[in-house]
């Protein structure tokens, strides 16, 4: 479903955000992407959605070779990928229902599909009673569930989550992770970049660890820390290592 072959991404000609990473994620897998800030997690996700192009190496996503993908085909690739972010990226002027419907509306889905799919997905994330609320009337956990609903309403093959629990308290984080787990059980490939040691250790799923843009560990049913010498201690990478972060994307990269 997702394959990286010796992928390197260099920002602005000097910052090596991802360095010679090879990785293969099969259909239906649940993968944690872990590593300290600036280790290249967000860049990996941005490479998968074609927001960034690999400097060298090949990336295949959903059967497409991204280096050979015409720019006008990128939107169609993204319809196969749902994305969830730490800051939710909900539209404050739209209700819960409208936020989710928007995702179908702008890819030209017919009214009938929107009317049946949106309530169904809101029920899946447990927000059927809050359809008419606005995002700022919801708790952080509820907002993140709206954003998961929006990412999943088009039933994508892949769901990418970039620090989805970064703004949530531990209990809410756990709820959200189990929601992603349920989505994964429908056959959707889930890749979640995270700092959250508790969740990773509890879930015991495949763990891919990055450090300074290099893949340092890849184990099935892994823990956050892995070998003791890698340690879970926060490791702040050299400031120069951090790629130019997108606005409001504080900890990501």
């Amino acid at each position, binding site marked *: 479903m997702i394959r990286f072959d010796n992928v390197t991404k260099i920002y602005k000609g000097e910052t090596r955000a991802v360095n010679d990473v090879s990785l293969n994620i099969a259909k239906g897998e649940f993968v944690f992407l872990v590593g300290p800030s600036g280790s290249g997690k967000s860049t990996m996700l941005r490479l998968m*959605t*074609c927001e960034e192009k690999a400097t060298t190496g090949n990336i295949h996503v959903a059967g497409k070779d991204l280096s050979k993908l015409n*720019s*006008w085909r*990128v*939107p*169609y*690739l*993204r*319809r*196969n*990928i*749902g*994305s969830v972010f730490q800051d939710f*990226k909900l*539209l404050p002027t739209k209700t819960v229902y409208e936020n989710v419907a*928007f*995702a179908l*509306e*702008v*890819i*030209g*889905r*017919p*009214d009938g599909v*929107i009317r049946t799919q949106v309530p169904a997905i809101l029920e899946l994330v447990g927000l059927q009673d809050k359809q008419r609320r606005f995002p700022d009337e919801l708790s952080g956990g509820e907002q993140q569930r709206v954003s998961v609903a*929006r*990412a999943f309403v*088009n039933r994508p093959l892949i769901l990418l989550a970039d620090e989805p629990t970064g703004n949530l308290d531990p209990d809410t984080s756990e709820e959200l992770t189990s929601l992603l787990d349920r989505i994964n059980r429908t056959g959707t490939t889930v890749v979640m970049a995270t700092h959250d040691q508790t969740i990773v250790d509890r879930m015991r799923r495949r763990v891919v660890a990055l450090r300074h843009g290099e893949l340092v560990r890849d184990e099935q049913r892994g823990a956050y820390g892995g070998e003791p010498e890698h340690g879970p201690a926060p490791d702040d990478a050299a400031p120069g290592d951090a790629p130019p972060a997108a606005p409001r994307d504080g900890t990501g990269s």
Partner: protein
Amino acid sequence: MSRIRYFARETWANIRRNLTLTFAAILTVAVGVMLVGMGLMAGYASGNALDRWEGGVQFEVFMDPQIDPSQIDALGLELETHPEIDRIEFFSSEEAYGLVSQQMADQPELLAQVSPEALPPSYRVVPRSVEAELIESLAAQFRQRPGVMSVQTGREEVDAIRTWFSSFQGIVLLLSIVLAGASVMLIFNSIRVAMFARRREIEVMKLVGATNSFIRFPFMLEGMLHGLVGGIVGAIAAGVLRGHVEGLFSRSDILAFFRSFVVTSSQFTTVVFVTVIAGVLVGMLGSAFAASRFLDV
């Protein structure tokens, strides 16, 4: 259906969100296309007026409307038999009135003040020669005859007026190009502001896989609407201007030329068509420019 509703809603929201910039853009387009219309109308009107002189190879002898009809006939015979004259054409007071009423069809209240008897009957004289000096001397022979009110040759006036109008048109064209440039930039800017105001929506749209053309469409539509409204306002302004100028010239006694300085209805339709299309084009250009500049994947 969901698409049409979406585009209508988004475009309207954009326009409402930055009314002042929208207003500025529309006004600039309006003034610009009004100038285009002015240039066109000046061209048409001077063309229509100049047509009466057929390039200056003929002259007109206006008779005093008060004199005896036999005197008019006598002069007509003299003109007709003159060796240097090819042919003549007579316009009675009634025929002159018919011509005037055609030209003033849009201003019945002005026409009401003109009575057929007050209009001079005239001979349109076509000499054998096309030499301007010969025509001038020929015309001069008839100027002092009894019963002749005036003799008008066109050549010099025609040339002077032609030059004047073509330079007037040149200036108007230049101004309208400058204003068209300013309109494109203003629309470009107002679309850019609209995009900035909606950057979160655009970000989400890109995220969920909306195509570039889908994202751009409401903005293009908005720019086109600016142009369209500006074009219509400009066309209306040109119409008002047309009425004023024609009203002014039809009362002018300075030059008979200006009395035929009119734009016909069909020509005015063309003017409206051109100004509105020009407005739409300007709007499309500005918004397309903004969309391609700020909405890449």
